[in-house]
């Protein structure tokens, strides 16, 4: 009724304007215009379910808490029954029972903030029989304990899913528990070393004070023996790690920093034991025990960092589904993925992930293959076509004949490439280790020289001076300060939402090289939006109403971007009819409306304004044109595209001015990539389109001969290339698994954060170099004094901590990422 009154003779172009829209009550995201209830305030069915469950249990405070935190994602609810969680095989694998109480660790999707912690730990109020739910926020693992006679695990799992946290068994429990145990052992060792160092220092203070007063020789010996016993405990238990590692280094002839450390500990300890037993001469027990503590502390920080990345690798497991719906003579059964063999038929419901590689034998749907190809548009999939594991079935049920499963699927091979890429990555020889090699040789030569010189001058003090040299030049700043700078830098970066794996990454990113950028989701937003509109404004709400009846991504984009924010009522839709892969038609407010692809609409309507030709021009620019016809006449043209992020242009310009060489490698269509590349100042030769994951990997491998290659990409489709590159930077929010393959994960969308990352890395390297110079200065001065025979145990005990504290102070006060602490 309204549509025909519109100014049809003068089609106008309107840019999409950002407008305030209703936001989802559960997740806060914008709600697409809906044909259902007028008061619907949910973006999807999942959020609606989650909201209802949370309200019915009186836990609305979750929303209050979350508002303060401002961090939300739509709920991922599903209709799974989780019946398999009650099967004996599952129970024997993942749950432990004692005295009627069962325990199980479940990995949860969608955990993101402290409000989730609050909600999940109130789960016992929703599920009677559940005794406790404790969430480990960092690992997204919930530990459940429940009463088996009252409630089944499947019911708890289904409740978790209904509030938006679909659970999965945390699979490699053994590896994780091993890491936790190692963590605890290290803490205990550190505490022991600390307690011993403190007490030995107290004895040392008494002894130094006694140097000036006449100390009773019996008391003096008592303190010396007490120091000795404690220090020997520290060396034999917490300090043993240095000796075993140094011994391994000597046996394999790969000297590293532990060799000079072990040498200093051994020389200081052995000489002090000798003088203590003899009853006269210098002792270095305080220096030795403090060294053990300080070096263990440095090591602890380092391994804590490495462990958290090991936890993240576990997320890789959660990518492909663990269950499949097997179709056989008896009907459809839910089976574990391991039960699938090539040749059997599986059913994939709309919204599910495809569990295997295979050929479609029944059904006609759209699949989202962005996991593998990075293609932002969904692909039509009908009978006889191949689908890959990990792609998501979007619109209707498919039946697929299995060709390969698990490791043999494309995604499985990709994961293996990732694994190989990670292990093949040449261990960057750490500077400290290399330095340690020459340092050891130098110190040994110098100690021998000192011994010879002093044997000639004053034989009684020769050994004493040589030992003092070894103790005082222990490369403490190298062993302590470098890991602390790296830990502090990565910690501060994490607070600024940049997750960095390992110190070598910091070093690699501090100088320019070649940067390969993915397009979808990296340079662009990664989703379709309305870019151009030609036609009367009055029919926009009608199209929005019609399209909100479909889940197709193009339909969702139209429903979202064409809806009127303040419309008093939603137009009424009748006789909705979808043609898969072509378009949608229906009666909207009594008007016969057809919306869809150019051939589909042209086949049903006349085109007096030659809009189809303009549609062709948009298609040439890499946009997706959609025509709309009313009562048999084409009246409007919408063009959808994946728009470039606002900050991309300036970021790329800044990167170029720093000397980085930039390339685009995308799985997308040639036209789309060329169009985006040109608008961002890339030459035609710098835009590579239609790249499969394997081609991207080859590209990165090839470029490595020309210099350092940094790959910036999103998701698993780039995983192999991310792992193969010298540094892989994953940028797409949500693709947690890419962190397993990459060295850096930027949680903020877009690439603007890269500049901040590069700055931080550069500054961290400056701090590390400064530390090395400080420790070199100390060691050279101390070595000079020791050779001159001027170092006594008191001076060693003062100089050694000062050198560590200076290095530590410099590291703590330095600006690496963000502002000063």
């Amino acid at each position, binding site marked *: 009724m309204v549509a025909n009154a519109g100014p049809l003779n003068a089609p106008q172009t309107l840019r999409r304007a950002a407008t305030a829209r209703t936001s989802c009550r559960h997740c806060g995201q914008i709600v697409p215009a809906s044909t259902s209830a007028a008061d619907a305030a949910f973006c999807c069915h999942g959020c609606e379910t989650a909201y209802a469950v949370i309200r019915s249990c009186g836990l609305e405070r979750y929303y209050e808490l979350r508002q303060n935190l401002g961090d939300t994602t739509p709920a991922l609810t599903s209709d799974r029954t989780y019946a398999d969680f009650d099967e004996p095989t599952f129970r024997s694998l993942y749950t432990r029972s004692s005295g009627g109480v069962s325990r199980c660790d479940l990995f949860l999707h969608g955990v993101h903030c402290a409000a989730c912690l*609050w909600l999940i730990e109130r789960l016992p109020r929703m599920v009677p029989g559940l005794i406790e739910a404790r969430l*480990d926020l*960092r690992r997204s693992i919930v530990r459940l304990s429940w009463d088996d006679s009252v409630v089944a695990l499947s019911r708890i799992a289904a409740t978790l899913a209904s509030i938006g946290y679909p659970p999965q068994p945390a699979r490699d429990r053994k590896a994780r528990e091993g890491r936790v145990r190692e963590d*605890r052992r290290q803490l*205990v060792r550190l505490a022991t070393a600390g307690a011993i160092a403190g*007490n030995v220092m107290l004895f040392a203070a008494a002894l130094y004070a006694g140097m000036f007063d006449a100390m009773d020789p019996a*008391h003096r010996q008592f303190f010396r023996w007490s120091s000795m016993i*404690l220090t020997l405990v520290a060396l034999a238990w917490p300090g043993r790690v240095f000796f075993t590692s140094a011994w391994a280094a000597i046996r394999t002839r790969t000297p590293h920093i532990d060799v000079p450390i072990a040498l200093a500990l051994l020389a200081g300890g052995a000489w002090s034991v000798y003088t203590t037993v003899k009853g006269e001469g210098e002792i270095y027990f305080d220096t030795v025990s403090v060294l053990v503590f300080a070096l263990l502390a440095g090591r602890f920080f380092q391994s804590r960092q490495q462990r958290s990345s090991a936890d993240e690798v576990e997320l890789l497991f959660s990518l492909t589904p663990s269950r499949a719906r097997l179709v056989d003579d008896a009907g459809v059964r839910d089976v574990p993925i391991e039960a699938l063999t090539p040749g059997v038929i599986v059913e994939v419901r709309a919204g599910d992930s495809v569990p295997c590689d295979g050929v479609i034998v029944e059904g006609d749907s759209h699949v989202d293959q962005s996991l593998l190809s990075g293609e932002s548009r969904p692909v039509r999939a009908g009978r006889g076509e191949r689908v890959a594991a990990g792609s998501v079935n979007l619109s209707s049920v498919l039946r697929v004949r299995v060709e390969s499963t698990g490791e043999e699927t494309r995604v499985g091979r990709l994961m293996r490439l990732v694994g190989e890429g990670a292990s093949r990555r040449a261990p960057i020889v750490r500077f400290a280790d290399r330095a340690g090699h020459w340092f050891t040789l130098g110190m040994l030569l110098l100690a021998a020289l000192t011994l010879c010189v002093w044997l000639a001058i004053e034989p009684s003090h020769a050994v004493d001076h040589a030992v003092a040299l070894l103790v005082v030049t222990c490369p403490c700043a190298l062993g302590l300060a470098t890991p602390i700078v790296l830990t502090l830098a990565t910690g501060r970066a994490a607070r600024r939402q940049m997750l960095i794996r390992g110190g070598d990454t910091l070093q690699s990113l501090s100088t320019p090289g070649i940067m390969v950028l993915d397009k979808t989701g990296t340079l662009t937003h990664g989703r379709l939006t309305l870019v151009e509109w030609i036609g009367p404004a009055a029919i926009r709400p009608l199209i929005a109403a019609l399209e909100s009846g479909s889940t197709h991504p193009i339909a969702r984009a139209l429903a979202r971007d064409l809806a009127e924010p303040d419309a008093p009522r939603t137009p009424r839709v009748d006789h909705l009819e979808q043609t898969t892969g072509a378009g949608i038609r229906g009666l909207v407010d009594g008007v016969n409306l057809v919306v869809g692809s150019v051939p589909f609409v042209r086949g049903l309507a006349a085109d007096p304004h030659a809009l189809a030709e303009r549609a062709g021009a948009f298609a040439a620019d890499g946009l997706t044109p959609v025509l709309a016809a009313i009562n048999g006449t084409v009246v409007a043209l919408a063009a959808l595209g994946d728009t470039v992020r606002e900050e991309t242009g300036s970021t790329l310009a800044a990167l170029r001015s720093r000397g980085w060489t930039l390339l685009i490698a995308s799985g997308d269509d040639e036209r789309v990539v060329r169009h985006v590349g040109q608008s961002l100042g890339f030459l035609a030769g710098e835009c590579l389109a239609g790249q499969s994951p394997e081609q991207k990997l080859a590209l990165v491998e090839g470029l490595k001969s020309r210099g350092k290659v940094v790959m910036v990409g999103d998701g698993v489709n780039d995983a192999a290339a991310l792992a193969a590159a010298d540094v892989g930077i994953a940028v797409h929010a949500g693709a947690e698994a890419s962190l397993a393959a990459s060295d850096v994960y930027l949680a903020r969308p877009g690439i603007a954060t890269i500049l901040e990352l590069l700055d931080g890395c550069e500054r961290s390297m400056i701090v590390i170099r400064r530390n090395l110079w400080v420790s070199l200065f100390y060691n050279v001065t101390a070595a000079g004094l020791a050779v001159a025979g001027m170092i006594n145990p008191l001076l060693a005990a003062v100089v050694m901590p000062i050198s560590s504290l200076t290095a530590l102070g410099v590291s703590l006060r330095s600006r690496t990422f963000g502002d000063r602490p």
Partner: protein
Amino acid sequence: MSVLYIVVPLAILLAGAGVLAFAWAARSGQFDDVDSPAERMLHDD
């Protein structure tokens, strides 16, 4: 000053007790997750 022969071993025993208490706490998992409790205590109702 012979009191030292009693006090010093006593002090070391006390320190040892402290280390044992810490080891017990660490082994029973008190330090496994140091992030969540910080959030949890803010939300108790």
